[in-house]
């Protein structure tokens, strides 16, 4: 961090978001020039370049401002360590997914639409990370969601994909309605939309409006629960992840989930500070504790009995949402709030790589045309050892074994829960451990199938696609490096969390 932060003007602060938006427009441009001859290399290249440029811009801004909050547009947006940290996650995932799509989309038409929708969704996510008012939060959330619906239904001739897209859209519409209604209730009580002003006016609920405010806050939780695929708004997730093309599943389960969390972190620490809310009788920490417990347990239990690997990963993704919810459920008055939020952020970083990698491995398997169940993975280790080693790393890191960053980030979550030191958080820490143990069971099934079992039928993988392999290997290397390197991020994460809370 620099000693004296520089002042950067408004537009430059939004450089990551703008870069992503411009990338989307460039993609449209390319597509409108030659709609039928879309080159996979060109489109993927533009997307990867655009997202990496956005990533670099975020890094540069973080170094220049030192992560100090910078208000924009009268406080509607804010660029601070938290938003830049999450921009890093979104752009990394986008780049990985775009790289993998180079091969995955080879045979498809409408490649340009795919890429531009992805980038537009990423644009919405970066805006979510910077939102500082309920209005911008809602709009950016929709900006992130709408392209996602289309992406899930991208395989137009595939019934599963289309059905999943429709379900996703319907549940999404319902959730958005709940979210919007919650916003209106909060506005009705406090008279403000901007987070810090909402916080200042929470006291207005004192005269009999606590119930209204409470219902509003819980409905806003509902909106975020939809985005993060948390119980009870998770119903869309297994179907959408399974039906969607695997790179889209990777994108949604990693980046989109992180976007839901960043806005939740900001709203609940800035707009509804825990101390004030509890004084009013609105114990949202308890609500998050319940959600975390139910979400991680349900996700893992359901994952344990799946036969389809992609669906198993979908449920495991729900389970991981439960783990990160600990970061909100442990924001009790007794906790070191920076530590708690930082732990959640760190898990999302690691998760961004290991989970994206795991879904991209599924994409690779789909590319090969190998089946979807555990048995179909038998003997893959002999055919494609590099990819299978990477997959093993992802799965064991997801389970929390000390082979990748997932081990450390889970330890941070446990530390955070222990630091809060209430019965509820101890229960959460315990549940995290039990669920991780259970998750090792179903992750190991994949590893066992790949390495130990003999193939049922003659198995022949069709080629070794460069883009997919590159993306998987990068994700695996980063996952492993995050084990020793998480310390690098933890400082940034804890600083970012601390500066947002004050």
């Amino acid at each position: 961090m620099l000693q004296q932060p520089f002042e950067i003007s408004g537009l430059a602060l939004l450089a990551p978001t703008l870069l992503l938006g411009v990338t989307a427009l460039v993609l449209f441009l390319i597509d409108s020039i030659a709609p039928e001859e879309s080159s996979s290399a060109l489109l993927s290249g533009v997307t990867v370049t655009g997202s990496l440029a956005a990533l670099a811009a975020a890094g540069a801004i973080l170094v220049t401002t030192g992560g100090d909050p910078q208000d924009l547009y009268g406080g509607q947006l804010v660029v601070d360590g938290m938003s830049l940290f999450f921009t890093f996650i979104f752009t990394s995932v986008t780049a990985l997914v775009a790289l993998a799509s180079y091969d995955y989309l080879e045979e498809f038409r409408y490649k340009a639409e795919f890429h531009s929708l992805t980038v537009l969704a990423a644009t919405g996510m970066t805006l979510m990370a910077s939102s500082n008012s309920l209005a911008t939060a809602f709009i950016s959330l929709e900006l992130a969601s709408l392209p996602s619906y289309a992406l899930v239904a991208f395989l137009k001739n595939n019934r599963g994909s289309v059905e999943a897209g429709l379900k996703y859209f319907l549940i999404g519409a319902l959730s958005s309605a709940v979210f919007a209604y919650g916003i209106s209730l909060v506005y009705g009580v406090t008279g403000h939309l901007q987070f810090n002003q909402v916080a200042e006016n929470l006291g207005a609920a004192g005269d009999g409006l606590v119930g209204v405010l409470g219902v509003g806050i819980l409905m806003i939780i509902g909106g975020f629960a939809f985005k993060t695929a948390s119980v009870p708004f998770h119903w869309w997730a297994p179907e959408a992840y399974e039906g969607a093309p695997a790179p889209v599943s990777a994108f949604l389960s990693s980046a989109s989930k992180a976007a839901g969390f960043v806005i939740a972190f900001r709203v609940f620490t800035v707009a509804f500070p825990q101390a004030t809310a509890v004084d009013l009788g609105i114990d949202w920490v308890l609500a998050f504790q319940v959600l975390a417990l139910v979400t991680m347990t349900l996700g893992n239990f359901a994952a344990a009995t799946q036969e389809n690997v992609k669906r198993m990963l979908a449920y495991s993704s729900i389970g991981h949402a439960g783990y990160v919810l600990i970061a909100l459920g442990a924001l009790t008055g007794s906790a070191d709030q920076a530590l708690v939020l930082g732990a959640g952020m760190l898990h999302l970083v690691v998760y961004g790589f290991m989970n994206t990698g795991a879904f991209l491995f599924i994409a690779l398997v789909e590319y090969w045309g190998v089946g979807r169940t555990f048995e179909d993975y038998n003997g893959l280790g002999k055919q494609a050892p590099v990819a299978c080693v990477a997959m093993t790393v992802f799965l064991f890191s997801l389970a929390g074994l000390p082979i990748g960053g997932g081990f450390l980030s889970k330890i941070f979550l446990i530390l955070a829960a222990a630091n809060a030191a209430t019965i509820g958080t101890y229960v959460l820490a315990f549940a995290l451990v039990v669920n991780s143990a259970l998750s090792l069971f179903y992750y190991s099934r994949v590893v066992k199938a790949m390495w130990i079992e003999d193939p049922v039928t003659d198995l022949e993988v069709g080629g070794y696609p460069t883009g997919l392999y590159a993306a998987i290997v990068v994700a695996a290397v980063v996952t492993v490096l995050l084990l020793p390197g998480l310390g690098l991020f933890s400082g940034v994460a804890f600083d970012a969390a601390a500066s947002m809370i004050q």
Partner: protein
Amino acid sequence: MAGAFDFAPAIALLPFGSFVVALFLGHLMPKRGALAGIIATVGSLLLSIWVALTVLGGETYNEAIYEFVAVGDQPIQFGLLLDPLSSLMLIIVSLIAVLVHVFSLGYMNDEGETGLPRYYGELGLFTASMLAFVMSSNLLMAFMFFELVGLCSYLLIGFWFRRDGPPSAAKKAFLVTRFGDYFFLVGVVAVFATFGTAQFAGPESFPRLAEAALAGEGEATLLFGLDAQTWFTVVGLLILGGVMGKSAQFPFHTWLPDAMEGPTPVSALIHAATMVAAGVYLVARIYGFYALLPTALAVIAFVGGFTALFAATMGVVKREIKQVLAYSTISQYGYIMLALGGGGYVAGVFHLTTHAVFKALLFLGAGSVIIAMHHNEDMWEMGGLKEKMPVTYYAFLSGSLALAGIVPFSGFWSKDEVLFETLIHGFGSDGGIGIALLLAYAMGLVAVFFTGFYTFRMVLLTFHGEPRSDTARDPHGVHWNVKGPLAVLGVLAATVGVINLVPVHTFVPAVPEYLHDWLFYGPEGLNGTYYEELLHNVAGVDPGYPLGEVGTMLASAAVSLGLALAGSALAVALYRGDSPVEHTDRLGSAKTVLFNNYYQDEYQVWLAQGLTMRVARGADKFDQGVVDGVVNGVSSVSLLGGSRVRRIQTGIVSNYATLLTLGLVALLVGIGLMGGWF
């Protein structure tokens, strides 16, 4: 200029090198690794002598050479402690190791054994571990090498792993000593917990801290609310557990006779210089600690005296030559313990030295006999070997006279000093410890008689009379590589006593008492003078002379020599002549008890099978039933729950919308009721 101490690590590293060389390249070498071992141990011997000469010049060395946990003021480290005691022991160990290596050429190579690279590799590692143990500067390092010594003895005893006996004997040696080491390990941890350091020497060493704590000056962490004296005694006794296991003291002695299943040169190495000696050496090493604890001293002396007598009686009836030696080893280590417990620090080390020489000699002599007898060890099938193998006979006789304690052979001087020291400290000390020492002395004294008896029974049956079997009539010849070590040791066994002629010194002050001076004027806090002060000031152990100093000494020497002669004479009377007969039947029912070694094995087997096995089965049941049951239960509940959860995901989107809404409502109602919104 680099001095001897700079090269001291090589004393242990050389045999370690021979271990690596013999193991990996031994099959390519002409003598299968023996030469590497001999060169390395000769190198160690020369370096040890150099170190000893440097120590003689008044220098000592106590430095860390590697710190592996650099935490706190007293990091955990590997270090070297080179003082009179350790340099003496280095010479003994490396000397015996050289001779055993040479002897192995005759016993193993010439007999056409296979697996020799493994043999010499293990021998090298064994020697290296023992030398490193001797040089250890702290208790933890000592413990590590103590364990390594135990491991190597396991490997060597079980060298002939394809036969039935050796693997089982190796396992027994390993398990029994491990049982003792378990206490030792707890003791090491207790020392760390109490003093924060495990250093042997220096002002911050744990014996000095213990002394300060007992004087009420220093600080030590006392556990379980015990007072300093009691707690230190507990710690001392825990460490003593390891000592008793390794030095085969009652009731942990049962592994040693079985260990005779190993190759005979290995038996010589184990019983004279290494594994068994490691135990008592440890007591001498931390004598500054034990000298503070009268109860621990009494226990050491009493265990030692009892073991000396107990093992000697069992040696009386054995038929195999190595079995007699095995029980004699147990008995002699009992004497060393008796001396250390009885306040005779120098006497204990003296007997350790002489015993190393004459017991190595006896084992190698037995090995020579066994070669000659085509590996038949039964003494009742020998006889008349005196004429056929004169070198072996005279060397063996020298060792036997030393073992029996006949003047002027080395064993007489050391055993006499052991008994004398115990006696005077028994008389001079008040209270329980005085009585305990006198009782221990009495047992040690009686054991002298049995020692003389079984020694000469062994000599007569093996070498005298008419040959009692065809092999004895026509024994297999032995080469220089067997005779050489025997000759060296035979001379040493007769003469090594001159290093400490204390009784003679009393009359003729011109006769030096080297060992006494050597050990008494060592570095600060590690010498005999200091230990005597501690014994006097802290433990209340003092010498007392009921017949005056000279009178007591003469009386003690006369009594022990008389008993040794009486025992020897009885053996000669019973077993002389051309065809001796067995007299064991005259013992009546005692014979059965003795042949069965007082049923020690039986009760220990019962402990292992009847008791431990049952407890283990119970634990296994608990593990299988309760622990595994819970685990299995959890997993089946998880899977069942999982499939239920899976069923809710119906795939119908209106169900999802309903459930979503219901879930939100449930959350709203729950939180609302708790927050009192309504």
